[in-house]
């Protein structure tokens, strides 16, 4: 874990926290650092900063440390923390927002997670559904995990669970339209 510089400016952090609140409805000041969220987090060992530390860093204006962290890419949005938090801090929503913001600023803490999400959505946009074999195959190529799932994939293939042919929906135009409409709307706002 990196050491954290507590002297960095709190003021630039302030406007960021306003944005956090507007977009994720989380007020990071609600957190009183009890640590209950981190105690139950399934991925806590894999994270560089556990969830209550992410909140403390935000409270202290250490935005860049948070946006560069792996934690915001590792979180599975399982909502264990949110369900148990005595202050009802919606950490999964916050983590979603932080990952999107990091992505916008070009900080990709876990490349493989990013590749996987991109492929998943590309498959949905093109076919209307997720094509598991295509997604898995491209994923292995792009991530360099060439041999991952190699032991299981032939099994999946032979028992008919995954097929080389994508499941296409008929009305693919409609789905592409939804993507286009969303993009347009985002551009306007």
């Amino acid at each position, binding site marked *: 874990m990196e050491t954290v510089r507590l002297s960095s400016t709190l003021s630039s952090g302030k406007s960021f926290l306003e944005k956090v609140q507007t977009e994720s409805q989380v007020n990071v000041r609600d957190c009183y650092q009890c640590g209950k969220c981190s105690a139950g987090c*399934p991925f806590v060992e894999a994270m560089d900063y556990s969830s209550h530390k992410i909140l403390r860093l935000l409270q202290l204006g250490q935005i860049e440390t948070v946006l560069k962290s792996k934690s915001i890419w*590792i979180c599975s949005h399982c909502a264990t923390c949110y369900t148990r938090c005595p202050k009802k801090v919606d950490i999964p929503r916050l983590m979603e927002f932080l990952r*999107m913001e990091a992505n916008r600023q070009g900080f990709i803490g876990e490349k*493989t997670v990013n590749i996987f999400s991109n492929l*998943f959505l590309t498959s949905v946009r093109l076919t209307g559904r*997720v094509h598991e074999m295509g997604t898995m195959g491209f994923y292995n190529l792009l991530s360099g995990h060439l041999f*991952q*799932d190699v032991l299981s994939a032939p099994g999946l293939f032979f028992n008919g669970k995954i097929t080389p042919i994508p499941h296409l929906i008929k*009305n693919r135009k409609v789905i592409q339209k939804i993507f286009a409409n969303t993009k347009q709307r985002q551009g306007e706002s």
Partner: protein
Amino acid sequence: MRMAYYPGCSLDGVGLEFNLSTRAVSKLLGLELWEIPDWNCCGASAAHTRDQLLALALPARNLALAEQEGLDVAVPCAACFNRMKVTELATRSSKETKDAISELIELPYEASNQARNLIDVMANVVGLEKIKEKVQKPLSGLKVACYYGCLLVRPPEITQFDDPEDPMSMDNIISSLGGEPVYWAYKVECCGASQTSALPKATVPLLHRIFQNAFENGADCLAVACPLCFINLDMRQGGVKKAFQGSYNLPIFYFTELMGLAFGVSPKELGLKKHFVDPMPLLNSKGILTRANAGREAV
């Protein structure tokens, strides 16, 4: 009983046993499933980390198509169920959101219907009494750890289903089938399925903790209600067991497969031959398949 049915992408692929068993038991229970025509992927596990509006629009189209028929939607996949609930509640929360969603999908959508997960459908729409009536081969002697995972019960404001820390609906279904649900601590722990492809190493300890706890509490097997949990627990079990030198060997079942077995449907018809952890030795050792059959012969 008639409901719209949203299988979701996994049930066409890695989760096909869930589809087979759901259809088989629904038929026996007189539950008519109207598959939403030309349904699309709901974007679960990726869209909400990229674009909140897209994450609402993708499920909304499917919900809107069911709403036109005036039907609630039965949703087997826990991840799809969760995203549909998010969409449904967001639509009801404000006119602004509702209008925005309708514009994106270019369909009217009022969220007058609701998404219901399959455990809820079986336990509360069909009902435990009806399930008990259909049992031909009781699962007596089979100790089952019912695993709910995250997205069926959390966050409770969204899922509006059962107790988020100690849900019992699936346990009650297993009891109705004559099986023995075990008391264990990890029924709502996250198995990390959404990250299992991108971060396989990080999910190994999560899986081990779940298997170990089920095993220590005397479970013979796990029952699940989500294709993502299923594939994670079934396909990765061998590797996880090796990494931790675990002594468990826990077949994973969709709870609908266990329903089907108890109703006398053949393992083949349910897709049981497609599992990575072979469930047949366990079923044979418990004598479930050869159990005296009160009526209907196994197909």
